[in-house]
């Protein structure tokens, strides 16, 4: 299996997504998955589309900022994939775009162009953070529940599961976290609205 993962890092949001991708990259490599990581400033449209166009990538994970039709790379000006620009390169691939609104127009367009499966979000992907943990994102107990639930998608995909199975595993994790946080201390119950929000708007489009 060949995994392509983008990890830009230019603000708090991407800093967290990049940090929470590191254990997944390590896990994939441990499992014998070939990993191509477009990291930080390497996350350009040219590098992304060139790699996807030339190499037999099986799973694509894009971390970044997005909207209905596009997702960004190394900064908000660097659009690496959008409707009509690169969405035809993802044929027969499983794709997870961890970015706001990626499942609104871009996801369906990727599927229309022959992708094997897609997971994304129909709304903004919102993550609460602990300001005191910005330097240690993996130790941030406020951000952890949501990022663990979305990380579950990638864990499932690198195990060779389908997008439907990855979505189901992620939903199960959301339910477990909801249960855990509901009976938890006051500080973490504040996360619940954001946990349910991301859960409700996480969409999966399997190929038919």
């Amino acid at each position, binding site marked *: 299996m060949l995994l392509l993962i983008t990890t830009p890092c230019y603000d708090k949001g991407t800093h967290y997504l990049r940090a929470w991708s590191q254990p997944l990259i390590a896990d994939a490599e441990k499992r014998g998955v070939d990993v191509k990581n477009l990291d930080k400033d390497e996350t350009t449209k040219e590098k992304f589309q060139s790699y996807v166009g030339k190499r037999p990538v099986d799973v694509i994970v894009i971390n970044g900022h997005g*909207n209905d039709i596009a997702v960004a790379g190394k900064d908000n000006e660097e659009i690496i994939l959008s409707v009509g620009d690169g969405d035809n390169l993802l044929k027969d691939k499983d794709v997870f775009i961890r970015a706001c*609104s990626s499942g609104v127009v871009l996801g369906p367009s990727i599927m229309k162009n022959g992708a094997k499966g897609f997971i994304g979000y129909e709304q903004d992907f*919102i993550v609460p953070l602990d300001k005191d943990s910005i330097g240690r994102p993996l130790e941030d107990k406020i951000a952890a529940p949501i990022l663990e639930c979305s990380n579950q998608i990638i864990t499932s995909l690198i195990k060779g599961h389908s997008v439907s199975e990855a979505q189901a595993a992620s939903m199960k994790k959301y339910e477990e976290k909801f249960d855990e946080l509901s009976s938890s201390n006051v500080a973490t119950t504040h996360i619940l609205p954001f946990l349910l929000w991301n859960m409700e708007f996480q969409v999966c489009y399997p190929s038919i």
Partner: protein
Amino acid sequence: MTNKTNMNNEQTASKDIINLVVARLESMPRNIEISIGDLDGIGGSYSIDDLITRVRNQDEVGKKMVDVQLSYLRNLNRFSQAV
């Protein structure tokens, strides 16, 4: 953009709803920040006090927080019974 439960962007929440959302935000610890990964207008990280001001002013970020909290309250009972 899909609107499963959220308000239309042109709608403004009633004063009661704004007060409810503000009260919920006011109860949040101030070490929490909210990061929104939107590529367009509302992307960024916001402190709780900033969010409270934005909910009161009903700008786009404030409306989004109303959407999040109302969605939670609407789904809470259904979800609690499901798990």
